[in-house]
């Protein structure tokens, strides 16, 4: 079996870019999104219509990828949603929606994929964090808190899965010009970027560079880490 990558949230943005990135590196790639993939499916890519917070859908998807591709060597838990709002104006339903995708979804996909990886005694898992957590950004309480939970999941999963030769890490991007941040007012984004050591927007290549490092076979002594971009710590 060659390398197989499962990437969640691949309909657009960073997830879509990661599909092309892994295909270019010779991986068989599978991915999922709640809505249909935008444009024609690239050769070598399998797409699933699945909500990562739906346990049944995740179990079925992961087992199907295992059966079709012979295993899963890399998981990138990219699917995520954000919402900017003052705490006093945030409906509970928004918080539930954010946690459902960002935390429960990351947990579910990680759990099911780790079963596949544990049988093969090898795996690389990369979760998505955010600089909004260490920066304690006003207006992002629920989003930052959900990603703080992802960081905690990452650290503990790293310990629990280490005996199976599975590493679990997270990448914490700065804002990248995707749909996730397009609705955020420019002055807010500018203020955020000024808090970074390197004051610029992130680019897809910044993220894939860190992911490439984390999923490398040589990175077998790197686990439980969250790597923030832009000099945020």
């Amino acid at each position: 079996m060659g390398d197989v990558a499962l990437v969640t949230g691949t309909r657009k943005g960073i997830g879509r870019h990661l599909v092309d990135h892994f295909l270019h590196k010779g991986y068989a790639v599978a991915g999922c999104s709640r809505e249909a993939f935008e444009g024609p499916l690239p050769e070598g890519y399998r797409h699933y219509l699945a909500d990562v917070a739906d346990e049944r859908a995740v179990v079925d998807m992961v087992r199907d990828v295992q059966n079709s591709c012979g295993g899963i060597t890399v998981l990138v838990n990219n699917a995520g949603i954000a919402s900017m709002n003052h705490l006093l104006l945030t409906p509970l339903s928004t918080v539930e929606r954010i946690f459902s995708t960002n935390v429960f979804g990351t947990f579910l996909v990680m759990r099911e994929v780790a079963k596949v990886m544990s049988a093969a005694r090898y795996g690389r898992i990369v979760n998505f964090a955010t600089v909004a957590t260490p920066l304690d950004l006003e207006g992002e309480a629920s989003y930052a808190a959900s990603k703080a939970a992802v960081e905690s999941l990452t650290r503990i999963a790293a310990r629990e899965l280490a005996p199976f030769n599975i590493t679990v890490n997270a990448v914490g991007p700065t804002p990248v010009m995707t749909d996730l941040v397009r609705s955020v007012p420019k002055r807010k984004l500018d203020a955020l970027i000024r808090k970074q050591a390197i004051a610029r927007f992130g680019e897809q290549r910044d993220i894939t560079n860190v992911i490439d490092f984390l999923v490398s076979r040589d990175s077998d002594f790197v686990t439980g880490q969250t790597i923030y971009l832009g000099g945020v710590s």
Partner: protein
Amino acid sequence: MDEKQVLQLVIETVSREADDLGYNELRVPTAETSLFGGEAGVDSLSLVRLIAAVERAAEIQFGRNIVLADEKAMSMRSSPFRTVGTLGDLLYQRLRAVDG
């Protein structure tokens, strides 16, 4: 699919995983063989591996994707992971539930 077939699947899976997990006593298991929670049996990591292996085996043999460690299983007063037989019972119940 009946209870005997399901138990047999669990026995075969445990037997197949025994060497890899490093438990000689699991090479020829029976329904009474202890798995987890008593004096004998496997450590928690090995149990995790076994549960994943049984789920996978059930999928291959019966074509059903099931999750054994669900809320019901984890909150049972008497652990369903005590012996090979109780794990077989749990698997049979989950397979039946999927079939509706």
